[in-house]
């Protein structure tokens, strides 16, 4: 185990997979000569050359479609879309081609493409650079969606995603690339389905994914130390398919549920998990599940307003205390 940064974990997964399989390529804006906006491909251009580490024009739908087409022939492209906001432009190829081509060809074609992209609000990036799009991606049949919350997951999920024959969207976060964490020294492949219990508890389950796992973990500490509430934190690193069994198992144990999400509440991760809880274990509940979500607004530029639009650990604590009547 070594402690490395999130971006280093992503870079290591690229490097190992490109080294072991000459059909693995990566492509995106500024990922080659410039080394990548978040350094996730730093040094790879010099090591693997311009044929395999491809600086693309600013043509998101075009280069994503090109990667999908290449994947039909057994190329394993890792596409970096610089910001998830730009992924809207590539939705045609992601949804209409990558997610559907295996099905509509009657199983003849596969599109083993990996699309990585950071989303989320960061530091005053404004309305058009602060989108949280995981809820859009996770609703599409035929597309796997994973979202790492730490460097180990970032490394292990990317490793498996590159080898998996399904198209995989990896939802990263603008603010997490410098986060440090333990990553195994030897090769490590994470499952692309399931969830992880990040903290075991008995009184309530806090469901998080990506950055909101950290709010939940902080909230659990506060709840434990200051309020005597023993919260379990479940990390939903896979958003499509969601871990129905894992979600239900935890709720059956704690009988209460809260979902923390950085996105707006409507048609989101939270509403989907609440529906799953209803379907799987409604009668196990001691209280109605609650969501802690962003405000339903475009993200403002002003720093104070921006912070007010997005939840944090304190919001999670407050929502839990309210649920417990405290």
């Amino acid at each position, binding site marked *: 185990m070594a402690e490395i940064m999130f971006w280093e974990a992503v870079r290591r997964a690229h490097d190992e997979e490109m080294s072991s399989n000459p059909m693995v390529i990566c492509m995106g804006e500024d990922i080659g000569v410039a080394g990548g906006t978040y350094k996730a491909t730093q040094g790879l251009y010099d090591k693997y050359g311009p044929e395999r580490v491809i600086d*693309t024009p600013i043509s998101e739908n075009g280069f994503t*479609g090109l990667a999908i087409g*290449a994947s039909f*022939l057994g190329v394993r492209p890792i596409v970096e879309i610089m910001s998830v906001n730009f992924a809207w432009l590539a939705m045609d190829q992601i949804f209409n081609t990558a997610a559907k081509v295996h099905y509509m060809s009657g199983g003849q074609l596969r599109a083993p493409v990996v699309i990585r992209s950071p989303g989320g609000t960061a530091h005053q990036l404004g309305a058009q650079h602060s989108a949280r799009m995981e809820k859009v991606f996770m609703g599409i049949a035929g597309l796997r969606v994973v979202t790492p919350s730490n460097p180990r997951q970032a490394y292990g999920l990317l490793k498996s995603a590159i080898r998996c*024959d399904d198209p995989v969207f990896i939802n990263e976060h603008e603010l997490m690339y410098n986060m440090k964490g333990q990553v195994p020294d030897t090769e490590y492949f994470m499952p692309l389905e399931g969830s992880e219990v990040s903290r075991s508890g008995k009184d309530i389950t806090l469901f998080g994914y990506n950055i909101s796992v950290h709010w939940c973990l902080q909230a659990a500490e506060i709840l434990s130390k200051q309020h005597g509430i023993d919260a379990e934190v479940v990390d939903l690193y896979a958003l499509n398919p969601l871990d129905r069994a894992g979600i239900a198992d935890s709720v059956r144990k704690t009988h209460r549920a809260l979902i923390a999400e950085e996105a707006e509440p409507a048609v989101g991760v939270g509403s989907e998990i609440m529906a799953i809880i209803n379907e799987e274990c409604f009668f196990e509940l001691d209280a109605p599940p609650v969501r802690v979500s962003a405000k339903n607004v475009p993200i403002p530029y002003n720093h104070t307003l921006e912070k007010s639009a997005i939840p944090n650990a304190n919001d999670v604590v407050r929502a839990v205390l309210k649920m417990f009547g405290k």
Partner: protein
Amino acid sequence: MDSEVKKRLLREMLFARRFEERCYEAYVERKIGGFLHLYPGEEACAYGVLEAAKVGHDYVITSYRDHIHAIKSGVDPKAVMAELFAKVTGCCKGLGGSMHIFGVDDHFMGGYALVGGPFPLAAGIAKGIQMKGGDEICICFLGDAANNQGTFHESLNMAKIWNLPVLYVCENNLYGIGTRIDRSTAVVDQYKRVSGYNIPSEQVDGQDVEIVHEAAKKAIDYVRSGNGPYFLELMTYRYRGHSMSDSNAYRGKDEERMWSKRDPIIMLRDRLIDAGKLTEAEYKEMDNDILEQIENEIIKFAEESPEPPLEMLEKYVLIENDPWVKGGSR
């Protein structure tokens, strides 16, 4: 082109015409559902170009008007018709339909229903060819109206900067759905539009299969020789509406009559008859053979095939039992 090849092409194009006309009837009979986009009038495009290609070796990709490109690429017409009839014996097991014909074993990489969608896919297939080091090329057939999508410009640009072995064939039938090209497109001559990407291009008569074949040979040779992308514009006309839901009300009978005089099948037939290589009687016999084959083999097969089982509904959403979903086999 020698007369035996011409006679074979005549037969193939006549087959394509009759196949599509029979699809029309089957649609009216409600044997075929959904959307149906037919090819009559444009046969010389697919047959002229693919006659010059290495079919089954080169990769072909196109739009929703895809039955004939699939058949000329080597996909069994019975499997195409069965797909239209939504049967499990269809080339996509009844999951694709008219707009999504696939024949990957024959390197027919599919029909796609989003206008302009295949442009980048074709460039990507060409990237795959380039990485594997083979001498295949990718041939992408799309209509003129697709060139008003961003993917056209994005893909031509990338194909050029990365020197990808892709031939873009524009079947310019003068209409984007029901809107005439000069009402939707600033530059009507499509071959001129690619000069902005420094890609060589040519515009030729798309109704004369010999002219198409000659132009395609030159284009394919250029691409296969490692020179990068090429753009070939074929001036053509579709006799039927954009799809079956199209009343064809946006164009005049005079225009339709004018184009019918330049029918690719009739022109080739008359040329062979004038040269003494074919008689009216032989042509009639050829036509009857085709009609009989379509009815007694192809339609019969599609009619008699079973529908896909309900268990297939969720089968191809994700790859079954991919070991990496579980984090590898270790």
